[in-house]
Protein backbone atom coordinates (compact mmCIF):
# COMPACT_ATOMS: atom_id res chain seq x y z
CA UNK A 1 0.00 0.00 0.00
CA UNK A 2 3.08 2.24 0.14
CA UNK A 3 2.67 2.74 -3.57
CA UNK A 4 -0.89 4.02 -3.34
CA UNK A 5 -0.06 6.26 -0.41
CA UNK A 6 2.90 7.83 -2.18
CA UNK A 7 0.96 8.36 -5.41
CA UNK A 8 -1.94 9.81 -3.44
CA UNK A 9 0.38 12.26 -1.70
CA UNK A 10 1.89 13.27 -5.04
CA UNK A 11 -1.64 13.88 -6.34
CA UNK A 12 -2.46 16.14 -3.38
CA UNK A 13 0.80 18.00 -3.90
CA UNK A 14 -0.12 18.54 -7.55
CA UNK A 15 -3.49 20.04 -6.62
CA UNK A 16 -1.86 22.28 -4.02
CA UNK A 17 0.90 23.47 -6.38
CA UNK A 18 -1.51 24.19 -9.23
CA UNK A 19 -3.89 26.16 -7.00
CA UNK A 20 -1.03 28.19 -5.52
CA UNK A 21 0.37 28.86 -8.98
CA UNK A 22 -3.03 29.98 -10.25
CA UNK A 23 -3.54 32.32 -7.29
CA UNK A 24 -0.08 33.80 -7.74
CA UNK A 25 -0.57 34.36 -11.48
CA UNK A 26 -3.99 35.89 -10.94
CA UNK A 27 -2.38 38.17 -8.38
CA UNK A 28 0.42 39.20 -10.74
CA UNK A 29 -2.09 40.15 -13.41
CA UNK A 30 -2.53 43.89 -13.78
CA UNK A 31 -5.84 45.26 -12.54
CA UNK A 32 -8.28 43.38 -10.35
CA UNK A 33 -11.95 42.56 -10.34
CA UNK A 34 -13.02 45.66 -8.39
CA UNK A 35 -11.30 48.11 -10.74
CA UNK A 36 -13.08 46.95 -13.86
CA UNK A 37 -16.18 49.07 -13.88
CA UNK A 38 -16.66 52.78 -14.40
CA UNK A 39 -16.87 53.49 -10.70
CA UNK A 40 -15.55 56.27 -8.54
CA UNK A 41 -12.25 55.64 -6.70
CA UNK A 42 -14.14 55.50 -3.42
CA UNK A 43 -16.44 52.76 -4.68
CA UNK A 44 -13.48 50.81 -6.04
CA UNK A 45 -11.72 51.05 -2.70
CA UNK A 46 -14.87 49.93 -0.89
CA UNK A 47 -15.28 46.95 -3.22
CA UNK A 48 -11.62 46.03 -2.81
CA UNK A 49 -12.08 46.08 0.93
CA UNK A 50 -15.30 44.04 0.75
CA UNK A 51 -13.63 41.37 -1.46
CA UNK A 52 -10.45 41.41 0.61
CA UNK A 53 -8.36 42.53 -2.35
CA UNK A 54 -6.72 45.37 -0.39
CA UNK A 55 -4.82 43.05 1.91
CA UNK A 56 -1.24 41.98 1.10
CA UNK A 57 -0.97 38.87 -1.08
CA UNK A 58 0.54 36.79 1.70
CA UNK A 59 -2.54 37.34 3.88
CA UNK A 60 -4.96 36.69 1.03
CA UNK A 61 -3.11 33.47 0.20
CA UNK A 62 -3.07 32.30 3.81
CA UNK A 63 -6.78 33.02 4.16
CA UNK A 64 -7.50 31.13 0.94
CA UNK A 65 -5.45 28.13 2.08
CA UNK A 66 -7.19 28.04 5.45
CA UNK A 67 -10.63 28.15 3.85
CA UNK A 68 -9.81 25.60 1.14
CA UNK A 69 -8.73 23.08 3.78
CA UNK A 70 -12.39 22.93 4.76
CA UNK A 71 -13.34 22.63 1.06
CA UNK A 72 -14.62 26.20 1.05
CA UNK A 73 -13.25 27.83 -2.10
CA UNK A 74 -14.71 31.27 -1.39
CA UNK A 75 -17.23 33.30 -3.39
CA UNK A 76 -17.02 34.10 -7.06
CA UNK A 77 -16.92 37.88 -7.53
CA UNK A 78 -18.90 37.96 -10.74
CA UNK A 79 -21.52 35.30 -9.99
CA UNK A 80 -22.00 36.08 -6.28
CA UNK A 81 -22.14 32.36 -5.65
CA UNK A 82 -19.87 29.97 -3.79
CA UNK A 83 -17.07 28.89 -6.13
CA UNK A 84 -17.39 25.27 -5.03
CA UNK A 85 -20.98 25.02 -6.27
CA UNK A 86 -20.22 26.73 -9.57
CA UNK A 87 -17.16 24.63 -10.22
CA UNK A 88 -18.95 21.43 -9.29
CA UNK A 89 -21.72 22.03 -11.84
CA UNK A 90 -19.33 23.00 -14.62
CA UNK A 91 -16.82 20.25 -13.81
CA UNK A 92 -19.62 17.71 -14.13
CA UNK A 93 -20.33 19.00 -17.65
CA UNK A 94 -16.66 18.73 -18.58
CA UNK A 95 -16.52 15.25 -17.08
CA UNK A 96 -19.50 14.12 -19.17
CA UNK A 97 -17.81 15.43 -22.30
CA UNK A 98 -14.36 14.05 -21.42
CA UNK A 99 -15.56 10.59 -20.38
CA UNK A 100 -17.77 10.18 -23.45
CA UNK A 101 -14.90 11.31 -25.67
CA UNK A 102 -12.50 8.93 -23.96
CA UNK A 103 -14.88 6.01 -24.49
CA UNK A 104 -15.40 6.92 -28.14
CA UNK A 105 -11.66 7.43 -28.68
CA UNK A 106 -10.89 4.05 -27.12
CA UNK A 107 -13.63 2.25 -29.04
CA UNK A 108 -12.37 3.73 -32.33
CA UNK A 109 -8.64 4.03 -31.75
CA UNK A 110 -7.78 0.61 -30.33
CA UNK A 111 -9.34 -1.57 -33.10
CA UNK A 112 -8.01 0.93 -35.65
CA UNK A 113 -4.49 0.46 -34.28
CA UNK A 114 -4.77 -3.32 -34.13
CA UNK A 115 -5.76 -3.39 -37.81
CA UNK A 116 -3.01 -1.03 -38.97
CA UNK A 117 -0.41 -2.74 -36.80
CA UNK A 118 -1.15 -6.32 -37.82
CA UNK A 119 -1.99 -6.04 -41.52
CA UNK A 120 -0.23 -4.54 -44.46
CA UNK A 121 -2.80 -4.40 -47.25
CA UNK A 122 -4.08 -1.36 -49.11
CA UNK A 123 -6.83 -0.73 -46.55
CA UNK A 124 -4.39 -0.82 -43.64
CA UNK A 125 -2.10 1.62 -45.42
CA UNK A 126 -5.01 3.94 -46.10
CA UNK A 127 -6.10 3.77 -42.47
CA UNK A 128 -2.54 4.58 -41.39
CA UNK A 129 -2.39 7.67 -43.62
CA UNK A 130 -5.79 8.70 -42.32
CA UNK A 131 -4.60 8.55 -38.73
CA UNK A 132 -1.62 10.75 -39.58
CA UNK A 133 -4.05 13.25 -41.06
CA UNK A 134 -6.43 13.13 -38.10
CA UNK A 135 -3.45 13.51 -35.76
CA UNK A 136 -2.73 16.80 -37.52
CA UNK A 137 -6.15 18.24 -36.74
CA UNK A 138 -6.19 19.86 -33.29
CA UNK A 139 -9.50 19.89 -31.35
CA UNK A 140 -9.98 23.59 -32.08
CA UNK A 141 -10.11 22.86 -35.79
CA UNK A 142 -11.95 19.57 -35.63
CA UNK A 143 -14.68 21.27 -33.63
CA UNK A 144 -14.87 24.21 -36.04
CA UNK A 145 -15.07 21.82 -39.00
CA UNK A 146 -17.71 19.57 -37.40
CA UNK A 147 -19.65 22.64 -36.34
CA UNK A 148 -19.69 23.91 -39.91
CA UNK A 149 -20.84 20.55 -41.22
CA UNK A 150 -23.53 20.28 -38.55
CA UNK A 151 -24.76 23.82 -39.25
CA UNK A 152 -24.90 23.32 -43.01
CA UNK A 153 -26.63 19.94 -42.89
CA UNK A 154 -28.71 20.55 -39.79
CA UNK A 155 -28.09 16.97 -38.65
CA UNK A 156 -27.02 17.87 -35.17
CA UNK A 157 -27.52 20.85 -32.85
CA UNK A 158 -24.45 23.06 -32.98
CA UNK A 159 -24.04 24.56 -29.56
CA UNK A 160 -24.94 24.45 -25.92
CA UNK A 161 -26.07 21.55 -23.83
CA UNK A 162 -29.27 19.58 -24.08
CA UNK A 163 -30.08 15.99 -24.93
CA UNK A 164 -27.61 13.37 -26.08
CA UNK A 165 -27.74 14.84 -29.60
CA UNK A 166 -25.94 17.91 -28.29
CA UNK A 167 -23.06 15.67 -27.27
CA UNK A 168 -22.29 14.44 -30.79
CA UNK A 169 -20.32 17.39 -32.19
CA UNK A 170 -18.19 18.20 -29.12
CA UNK A 171 -17.52 14.53 -28.36
CA UNK A 172 -16.38 13.71 -31.88
CA UNK A 173 -14.26 16.86 -32.06
CA UNK A 174 -12.52 15.91 -28.84
CA UNK A 175 -12.31 12.16 -29.47
CA UNK A 176 -10.93 12.05 -33.02
CA UNK A 177 -7.41 13.40 -32.35
CA UNK A 178 -7.14 11.17 -29.28
CA UNK A 179 -8.36 8.15 -31.24
CA UNK A 180 -5.59 8.80 -33.77
CA UNK A 181 -3.07 9.04 -30.96
CA UNK A 182 -4.23 5.71 -29.51
CA UNK A 183 -4.12 4.20 -33.00
CA UNK A 184 -0.46 5.15 -33.47
CA UNK A 185 0.47 3.69 -30.10
CA UNK A 186 -1.60 0.51 -30.41
CA UNK A 187 -0.35 -0.03 -33.94
CA UNK A 188 3.28 0.09 -32.91
CA UNK A 189 2.72 -1.90 -29.77
CA UNK A 190 0.88 -4.76 -31.45
CA UNK A 191 3.48 -4.80 -34.22
CA UNK A 192 6.14 -5.39 -31.56
CA UNK A 193 4.01 -8.00 -29.78
CA UNK A 194 3.44 -9.99 -32.98
CA UNK A 195 7.20 -10.14 -33.58
CA UNK A 196 7.77 -11.98 -30.31
CA UNK A 197 8.63 -15.72 -30.25
CA UNK A 198 5.45 -16.45 -28.28
CA UNK A 199 3.38 -15.34 -31.28
CA UNK A 200 5.33 -17.61 -33.59
CA UNK A 201 4.74 -20.45 -31.13
CA UNK A 202 1.00 -19.72 -31.13
CA UNK A 203 0.91 -19.73 -34.94
CA UNK A 204 2.91 -22.98 -34.97
CA UNK A 205 0.27 -24.60 -32.79
CA UNK A 206 -2.19 -23.88 -35.58
CA UNK A 207 -4.20 -21.18 -33.84
CA UNK A 208 -6.06 -19.11 -36.46
CA UNK A 209 -4.45 -15.77 -37.30
CA UNK A 210 -7.33 -13.59 -36.09
CA UNK A 211 -7.22 -15.32 -32.72
CA UNK A 212 -3.45 -14.90 -32.59
CA UNK A 213 -3.86 -11.18 -33.20
CA UNK A 214 -6.81 -10.43 -30.96
CA UNK A 215 -6.15 -12.82 -28.07
CA UNK A 216 -2.42 -13.35 -27.92
CA UNK A 217 -0.92 -10.26 -29.55
CA UNK A 218 -3.41 -7.73 -28.32
CA UNK A 219 -3.21 -8.76 -24.71
CA UNK A 220 0.58 -8.47 -24.72
CA UNK A 221 0.44 -5.10 -26.41
CA UNK A 222 -1.84 -3.50 -23.84
CA UNK A 223 0.70 -2.23 -21.30
CA UNK A 224 2.20 0.66 -23.33
CA UNK A 225 -1.29 1.68 -24.42
CA UNK A 226 -2.63 1.74 -20.88
CA UNK A 227 0.46 3.65 -19.74
CA UNK A 228 -0.44 6.53 -22.01
CA UNK A 229 -3.91 6.99 -20.53
CA UNK A 230 -2.44 9.10 -17.73
CA UNK A 231 -1.09 11.48 -20.34
CA UNK A 232 -4.32 11.37 -22.31
CA UNK A 233 -6.21 12.84 -19.36
CA UNK A 234 -4.04 15.91 -19.83
CA UNK A 235 -4.75 16.16 -23.54
CA UNK A 236 -8.47 15.58 -22.92
CA UNK A 237 -8.35 18.65 -20.73
CA UNK A 238 -6.38 20.76 -23.16
CA UNK A 239 -8.65 19.64 -25.97
CA UNK A 240 -11.90 20.15 -24.10
CA UNK A 241 -10.93 23.77 -23.53
CA UNK A 242 -10.98 24.55 -27.26
CA UNK A 243 -14.02 22.36 -27.88
CA UNK A 244 -16.02 23.96 -25.07
CA UNK A 245 -15.33 27.44 -26.36
CA UNK A 246 -16.20 26.65 -29.98
CA UNK A 247 -19.38 24.71 -29.17
CA UNK A 248 -20.38 26.80 -26.13
CA UNK A 249 -20.35 23.70 -23.93
CA UNK A 250 -20.74 25.10 -20.40
CA UNK A 251 -17.76 23.32 -18.87
CA UNK A 252 -14.72 24.10 -16.78
CA UNK A 253 -12.71 25.49 -19.71
CA UNK A 254 -15.30 28.10 -20.58
CA UNK A 255 -15.65 29.05 -16.91
CA UNK A 256 -11.88 29.35 -16.49
CA UNK A 257 -11.59 31.58 -19.55
CA UNK A 258 -14.32 33.91 -18.24
CA UNK A 259 -12.72 33.96 -14.81
CA UNK A 260 -9.33 34.85 -16.27
CA UNK A 261 -10.77 37.59 -18.45
CA UNK A 262 -12.64 39.21 -15.56
CA UNK A 263 -9.87 38.70 -12.97
CA UNK A 264 -12.23 36.71 -10.76
CA UNK A 265 -9.37 35.42 -8.59
CA UNK A 266 -11.29 32.99 -6.41
CA UNK A 267 -12.94 31.44 -9.42
CA UNK A 268 -9.60 31.04 -11.26
CA UNK A 269 -8.14 29.22 -8.27
CA UNK A 270 -11.29 27.10 -7.90
CA UNK A 271 -11.14 26.02 -11.55
CA UNK A 272 -7.46 25.23 -11.17
CA UNK A 273 -8.18 23.07 -8.12
CA UNK A 274 -10.90 21.16 -9.93
CA UNK A 275 -8.76 20.71 -13.04
CA UNK A 276 -5.75 19.55 -11.07
CA UNK A 277 -7.90 17.14 -9.06
CA UNK A 278 -9.22 15.61 -12.28
CA UNK A 279 -5.73 15.37 -13.68
CA UNK A 280 -4.33 13.77 -10.54
CA UNK A 281 -7.22 11.30 -10.38
CA UNK A 282 -6.67 10.37 -14.03
CA UNK A 283 -2.95 9.79 -13.58
CA UNK A 284 -3.58 7.77 -10.43
CA UNK A 285 -6.21 5.64 -12.17
CA UNK A 286 -3.88 4.97 -15.09
CA UNK A 287 -1.04 3.98 -12.73
CA UNK A 288 -3.29 1.54 -10.90
CA UNK A 289 -4.65 0.08 -14.15
CA UNK A 290 -1.10 -0.45 -15.36
CA UNK A 291 -0.06 -2.15 -12.15
CA UNK A 292 -3.09 -4.43 -12.27
CA UNK A 293 -2.72 -5.50 -15.91
CA UNK A 294 1.01 -6.05 -16.07
CA UNK A 295 2.12 -8.72 -13.60
CA UNK A 296 5.76 -7.67 -14.00
CA UNK A 297 4.96 -4.26 -12.60
CA UNK A 298 3.87 -5.38 -9.17
CA UNK A 299 2.24 -2.66 -7.16
CA UNK A 300 5.21 -2.81 -4.77
CA UNK A 301 7.83 -2.21 -7.46
CA UNK A 302 6.09 0.77 -8.93
CA UNK A 303 7.11 3.46 -6.50
Amino acid at each position, binding site marked *: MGFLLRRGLAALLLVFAVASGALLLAQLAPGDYAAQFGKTPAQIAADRHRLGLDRPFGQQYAAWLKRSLTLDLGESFQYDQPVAALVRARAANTAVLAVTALIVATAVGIPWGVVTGSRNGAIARMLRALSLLVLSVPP*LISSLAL*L*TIAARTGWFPVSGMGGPRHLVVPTLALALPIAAMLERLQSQSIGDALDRPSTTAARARGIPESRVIWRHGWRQSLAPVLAVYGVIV*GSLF*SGSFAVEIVTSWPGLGLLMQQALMTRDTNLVAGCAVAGAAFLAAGILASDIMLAVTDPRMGIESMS
Partner: protein
Amino acid sequence: MKLLAGFVLIVLLAPAIAPYEPGRQFPGYQYAPPMPPRLLDAERVHAPFAYALHAVDPIERRYAEDRSRRVNSFAGDAPWFLLGSDAFGRDVLSRVLIGARLSLGIALLSTLFALILGAGIGAAAAHAGGWIDALLMRLADFVIVLPGIYVVLALRGALPLVLSTSQVFAAMVAVLSLVGWPTVARGVRGILIIERQSEYAEAARAVGASAWRLIGRHLLPATRGFLSAQATLLVPAFVMAEATLSFVGLGFAPPTPSWGAMLHDAGAVQIAADAPWLLAPAGAVVLTVFLVHASADRSEPSSAPIFRNQVL
Protein backbone atom coordinates in the same frame (compact mmCIF):
# COMPACT_ATOMS: atom_id res chain seq x y z
CA MET B 1 15.06 20.66 -41.42
CA LYS B 2 14.35 21.46 -45.07
CA LEU B 3 10.72 21.88 -44.15
CA LEU B 4 11.52 24.30 -41.35
CA ALA B 5 13.70 26.26 -43.77
CA GLY B 6 10.73 26.35 -46.13
CA PHE B 7 8.56 27.80 -43.35
CA VAL B 8 11.18 30.49 -42.73
CA LEU B 9 11.08 31.30 -46.44
CA ILE B 10 7.28 31.67 -46.37
CA VAL B 11 7.57 33.96 -43.36
CA LEU B 12 10.08 36.15 -45.16
CA LEU B 13 8.43 36.15 -48.59
CA ALA B 14 4.75 36.34 -47.59
CA PRO B 15 4.29 40.04 -48.45
CA ALA B 16 5.75 39.48 -51.91
CA ILE B 17 3.51 36.48 -52.70
CA ALA B 18 0.25 37.87 -51.32
CA PRO B 19 -1.88 39.21 -54.19
CA TYR B 20 -3.39 42.08 -52.18
CA GLU B 21 -2.66 44.15 -49.12
CA PRO B 22 -4.09 42.15 -46.18
CA GLY B 23 -6.02 45.17 -44.92
CA ARG B 24 -7.38 46.31 -48.30
CA GLN B 25 -11.19 46.32 -48.34
CA PHE B 26 -13.12 45.97 -51.59
CA PRO B 27 -16.45 47.76 -51.13
CA GLY B 28 -19.40 45.73 -52.40
CA TYR B 29 -17.52 42.41 -52.15
CA GLN B 30 -18.30 41.32 -48.59
CA TYR B 31 -18.36 37.52 -48.14
CA ALA B 32 -17.58 36.90 -51.81
CA PRO B 33 -17.12 33.18 -52.53
CA PRO B 34 -13.83 31.77 -53.86
CA MET B 35 -13.21 32.40 -57.58
CA PRO B 36 -11.43 29.30 -58.88
CA PRO B 37 -9.04 29.83 -61.80
CA ARG B 38 -10.30 28.51 -65.13
CA LEU B 39 -8.48 27.51 -68.28
CA LEU B 40 -11.39 26.75 -70.62
CA ASP B 41 -14.30 28.79 -71.84
CA ALA B 42 -16.92 27.82 -74.45
CA GLU B 43 -14.41 27.94 -77.31
CA ARG B 44 -10.81 27.41 -76.39
CA VAL B 45 -8.02 27.26 -73.82
CA HIS B 46 -6.86 30.52 -72.23
CA ALA B 47 -4.33 31.65 -69.71
CA PRO B 48 -5.82 31.20 -66.21
CA PHE B 49 -8.73 33.54 -65.63
CA ALA B 50 -11.86 33.83 -63.51
CA TYR B 51 -15.27 35.29 -64.20
CA ALA B 52 -16.00 38.50 -62.35
CA LEU B 53 -18.60 38.39 -59.58
CA HIS B 54 -21.66 40.53 -59.41
CA ALA B 55 -23.95 40.78 -56.44
CA VAL B 56 -27.32 39.14 -57.10
CA ASP B 57 -28.59 40.20 -53.73
CA PRO B 58 -26.34 42.74 -52.00
CA ILE B 59 -28.23 42.46 -48.70
CA GLU B 60 -28.09 38.67 -48.48
CA ARG B 61 -24.55 38.71 -49.87
CA ARG B 62 -25.32 36.35 -52.69
CA TYR B 63 -23.11 36.51 -55.73
CA ALA B 64 -23.13 35.04 -59.23
CA GLU B 65 -20.51 34.79 -61.93
CA ASP B 66 -20.76 37.43 -64.62
CA ARG B 67 -19.82 35.45 -67.74
CA SER B 68 -19.32 38.59 -69.81
CA ARG B 69 -16.53 39.97 -67.65
CA ARG B 70 -13.24 38.27 -66.96
CA VAL B 71 -10.57 38.79 -64.37
CA ASN B 72 -7.13 38.01 -65.72
CA SER B 73 -4.82 39.41 -63.09
CA PHE B 74 -4.69 40.78 -59.58
CA ALA B 75 -3.99 44.26 -60.94
CA GLY B 76 -7.32 44.86 -62.71
CA ASP B 77 -10.37 46.79 -61.50
CA ALA B 78 -12.35 43.75 -60.40
CA PRO B 79 -10.75 41.77 -57.54
CA TRP B 80 -9.79 38.11 -57.90
CA PHE B 81 -10.46 36.30 -54.62
CA LEU B 82 -8.89 32.85 -55.03
CA LEU B 83 -10.12 31.87 -51.55
CA GLY B 84 -13.05 34.26 -51.28
CA SER B 85 -13.34 37.41 -49.18
CA ASP B 86 -14.32 38.11 -45.58
CA ALA B 87 -16.84 40.34 -43.81
CA PHE B 88 -14.96 43.51 -44.84
CA GLY B 89 -14.35 42.45 -48.44
CA ARG B 90 -10.72 41.58 -47.73
CA ASP B 91 -8.93 38.85 -49.70
CA VAL B 92 -8.75 35.68 -47.58
CA LEU B 93 -5.75 34.24 -49.44
CA SER B 94 -3.65 37.35 -48.84
CA ARG B 95 -4.58 37.33 -45.18
CA VAL B 96 -3.72 33.64 -44.78
CA LEU B 97 -0.31 34.27 -46.37
CA ILE B 98 0.42 37.33 -44.25
CA GLY B 99 -1.01 35.44 -41.24
CA ALA B 100 1.66 32.80 -41.83
CA ARG B 101 4.22 35.41 -40.88
CA LEU B 102 2.77 35.76 -37.39
CA SER B 103 1.63 32.19 -36.82
CA LEU B 104 4.70 30.42 -38.22
CA GLY B 105 7.00 33.16 -36.97
CA ILE B 106 5.77 32.68 -33.41
CA ALA B 107 6.03 28.90 -33.67
CA LEU B 108 9.58 28.98 -35.07
CA LEU B 109 10.91 31.58 -32.63
CA SER B 110 9.27 29.95 -29.60
CA THR B 111 10.70 26.59 -30.68
CA LEU B 112 14.17 28.12 -30.94
CA PHE B 113 13.89 29.69 -27.47
CA ALA B 114 12.38 26.56 -25.92
CA LEU B 115 15.28 24.50 -27.32
CA ILE B 116 17.89 26.98 -26.03
CA LEU B 117 16.20 27.22 -22.62
CA GLY B 118 15.73 23.45 -22.40
CA ALA B 119 19.30 22.68 -23.45
CA GLY B 120 20.63 25.24 -20.97
CA ILE B 121 18.59 23.92 -18.06
CA GLY B 122 19.29 20.30 -19.00
CA ALA B 123 23.03 20.98 -19.20
CA ALA B 124 22.95 22.87 -15.89
CA ALA B 125 21.11 20.00 -14.20
CA ALA B 126 23.49 17.38 -15.59
CA HIS B 127 26.51 19.46 -14.62
CA ALA B 128 25.35 20.46 -11.14
CA GLY B 129 23.88 17.14 -10.07
CA GLY B 130 22.67 16.74 -6.50
CA TRP B 131 19.71 18.73 -5.22
CA ILE B 132 19.85 21.33 -8.03
CA ASP B 133 19.44 18.52 -10.56
CA ALA B 134 16.62 16.98 -8.55
CA LEU B 135 14.85 20.30 -8.15
CA LEU B 136 15.09 21.23 -11.84
CA MET B 137 13.85 17.83 -12.94
CA ARG B 138 10.90 17.86 -10.50
CA LEU B 139 10.00 21.28 -11.90
CA ALA B 140 10.21 19.89 -15.43
CA ASP B 141 7.98 16.92 -14.49
CA PHE B 142 5.48 19.30 -12.95
CA VAL B 143 5.21 21.43 -16.08
CA ILE B 144 5.02 18.34 -18.33
CA VAL B 145 2.11 16.87 -16.40
CA LEU B 146 -0.03 20.02 -16.64
CA PRO B 147 -2.30 20.50 -19.67
CA GLY B 148 -0.18 22.94 -21.63
CA ILE B 149 -2.91 25.14 -22.97
CA TYR B 150 -4.08 26.02 -19.46
CA VAL B 151 -0.56 26.97 -18.43
CA VAL B 152 -0.27 29.14 -21.53
CA LEU B 153 -3.67 30.62 -20.75
CA ALA B 154 -2.82 31.37 -17.14
CA LEU B 155 0.55 32.89 -18.04
CA ARG B 156 -1.05 34.97 -20.78
CA GLY B 157 -3.79 35.97 -18.34
CA ALA B 158 -1.15 37.43 -16.05
CA LEU B 159 -0.25 39.97 -18.75
CA PRO B 160 -2.37 43.00 -19.67
CA LEU B 161 -5.33 42.07 -21.86
CA VAL B 162 -4.80 44.75 -24.50
CA LEU B 163 -1.38 44.76 -26.13
CA SER B 164 -0.02 46.00 -29.46
CA THR B 165 0.70 43.44 -32.18
CA SER B 166 4.44 43.32 -31.51
CA GLN B 167 3.84 43.08 -27.76
CA VAL B 168 1.47 40.15 -28.32
CA PHE B 169 4.13 38.54 -30.50
CA ALA B 170 6.79 38.89 -27.80
CA ALA B 171 4.40 37.78 -25.04
CA MET B 172 3.37 34.65 -26.94
CA VAL B 173 6.97 33.70 -27.73
CA ALA B 174 7.87 34.12 -24.06
CA VAL B 175 4.88 32.16 -22.77
CA LEU B 176 5.26 29.30 -25.27
CA SER B 177 8.99 28.90 -24.63
CA LEU B 178 8.26 28.74 -20.91
CA VAL B 179 5.87 25.85 -21.52
CA GLY B 180 8.00 24.04 -24.11
CA TRP B 181 11.34 23.65 -22.35
CA PRO B 182 10.81 20.72 -19.91
CA THR B 183 10.85 17.77 -22.35
CA VAL B 184 13.91 19.28 -24.01
CA ALA B 185 15.66 19.72 -20.67
CA ARG B 186 14.94 16.14 -19.57
CA GLY B 187 16.27 14.70 -22.82
CA VAL B 188 19.39 16.87 -22.93
CA ARG B 189 20.19 16.03 -19.32
CA GLY B 190 19.85 12.31 -20.02
CA ILE B 191 22.05 12.44 -23.11
CA LEU B 192 24.73 14.51 -21.36
CA ILE B 193 24.89 12.15 -18.39
CA ILE B 194 25.51 9.21 -20.72
CA GLU B 195 27.86 11.03 -23.08
CA ARG B 196 30.13 12.43 -20.42
CA GLN B 197 31.21 8.89 -19.53
CA SER B 198 32.31 8.21 -23.10
CA GLU B 199 35.94 8.09 -24.15
CA TYR B 200 36.00 11.28 -26.15
CA ALA B 201 34.74 13.18 -23.11
CA GLU B 202 37.38 11.47 -21.02
CA ALA B 203 40.00 12.57 -23.56
CA ALA B 204 38.78 16.17 -23.52
CA ARG B 205 38.93 16.20 -19.74
CA ALA B 206 42.42 14.69 -19.84
CA VAL B 207 43.78 17.54 -21.97
CA GLY B 208 42.34 19.97 -19.44
CA ALA B 209 39.05 21.15 -20.94
CA SER B 210 36.98 23.10 -18.41
CA ALA B 211 33.55 21.80 -17.46
CA TRP B 212 31.73 24.39 -19.56
CA ARG B 213 34.02 23.88 -22.56
CA LEU B 214 33.45 20.14 -22.27
CA ILE B 215 29.67 20.64 -22.27
CA GLY B 216 29.52 23.38 -24.90
CA ARG B 217 32.05 22.07 -27.41
CA HIS B 218 32.02 18.31 -26.91
CA LEU B 219 28.81 17.10 -25.31
CA LEU B 220 26.02 19.40 -26.57
CA PRO B 221 26.70 18.55 -30.24
CA ALA B 222 25.67 14.98 -29.35
CA THR B 223 22.15 16.25 -28.63
CA ARG B 224 21.64 17.63 -32.13
CA GLY B 225 19.52 14.70 -33.36
CA PHE B 226 17.35 14.85 -30.24
CA LEU B 227 16.91 18.61 -30.55
CA SER B 228 15.80 18.46 -34.17
CA ALA B 229 13.32 15.71 -33.26
CA GLN B 230 12.01 17.95 -30.48
CA ALA B 231 11.68 20.81 -32.94
CA THR B 232 9.30 18.71 -35.05
CA LEU B 233 7.18 18.25 -31.90
CA LEU B 234 7.23 21.85 -30.78
CA VAL B 235 6.54 23.67 -34.05
CA PRO B 236 3.10 22.03 -34.67
CA ALA B 237 2.15 22.33 -31.01
CA PHE B 238 2.99 26.04 -31.03
CA VAL B 239 1.11 26.67 -34.28
CA MET B 240 -1.95 25.12 -32.61
CA ALA B 241 -1.36 27.12 -29.44
CA GLU B 242 -1.27 30.43 -31.30
CA ALA B 243 -4.48 29.52 -33.10
CA THR B 244 -6.20 28.59 -29.83
CA LEU B 245 -5.03 31.67 -27.93
CA SER B 246 -6.02 34.12 -30.65
CA PHE B 247 -9.29 32.26 -31.14
CA VAL B 248 -10.32 32.77 -27.52
CA GLY B 249 -9.34 36.44 -27.65
CA LEU B 250 -6.07 36.28 -25.71
CA GLY B 251 -3.83 36.53 -28.77
CA PHE B 252 -3.80 38.88 -31.71
CA ALA B 253 -6.71 41.29 -31.88
CA PRO B 254 -9.00 41.16 -34.94
CA PRO B 255 -7.64 43.49 -37.61
CA THR B 256 -4.29 41.72 -37.33
CA PRO B 257 -4.25 38.74 -39.71
CA SER B 258 -2.95 35.76 -37.74
CA TRP B 259 -4.47 32.32 -38.35
CA GLY B 260 -6.05 32.21 -34.91
CA ALA B 261 -7.44 35.75 -35.17
CA MET B 262 -8.96 34.91 -38.58
CA LEU B 263 -10.57 31.78 -37.13
CA HIS B 264 -11.96 33.97 -34.38
CA ASP B 265 -13.78 36.02 -37.04
CA ALA B 266 -15.05 32.87 -38.74
CA GLY B 267 -15.92 31.14 -35.49
CA ALA B 268 -19.55 32.22 -35.16
CA VAL B 269 -21.73 29.31 -36.22
CA GLN B 270 -23.77 31.09 -38.86
CA ILE B 271 -20.74 32.71 -40.47
CA ALA B 272 -18.84 29.45 -40.80
CA ALA B 273 -21.92 27.75 -42.24
CA ASP B 274 -22.65 30.49 -44.80
CA ALA B 275 -19.05 31.25 -45.74
CA PRO B 276 -16.99 28.11 -45.10
CA TRP B 277 -14.07 29.55 -47.08
CA LEU B 278 -13.35 31.72 -44.06
CA LEU B 279 -12.05 28.52 -42.44
CA ALA B 280 -9.07 28.63 -44.85
CA PRO B 281 -6.64 29.41 -41.97
CA ALA B 282 -7.78 26.14 -40.34
CA GLY B 283 -6.63 24.41 -43.51
CA ALA B 284 -3.31 26.23 -43.24
CA VAL B 285 -2.84 25.02 -39.64
CA VAL B 286 -3.68 21.41 -40.55
CA LEU B 287 -1.39 21.52 -43.60
CA THR B 288 1.50 22.86 -41.53
CA VAL B 289 1.09 20.26 -38.80
CA PHE B 290 0.60 17.44 -41.30
CA LEU B 291 3.72 18.38 -43.28
CA VAL B 292 5.82 18.38 -40.12
CA HIS B 293 4.38 15.02 -38.97
CA ALA B 294 4.86 13.43 -42.38
CA SER B 295 8.44 14.63 -42.78
CA ALA B 296 9.35 13.55 -39.25
CA ASP B 297 7.77 10.16 -39.94
CA ARG B 298 9.95 9.63 -42.99
CA SER B 299 13.21 10.79 -41.47
CA GLU B 300 12.96 8.65 -38.32
CA PRO B 301 10.26 6.03 -38.72
CA SER B 302 11.24 4.35 -35.46
CA SER B 303 10.30 7.29 -33.25
CA ALA B 304 6.64 7.10 -32.44
CA PRO B 305 4.72 10.23 -33.40
CA ILE B 306 2.27 9.64 -30.59
CA PHE B 307 3.43 12.35 -28.31
CA ARG B 308 3.42 14.93 -31.06
CA ASN B 309 0.31 16.59 -29.75
CA GLN B 310 1.33 15.93 -26.22
CA VAL B 311 3.62 18.90 -25.88
CA LEU B 312 0.70 21.21 -25.35
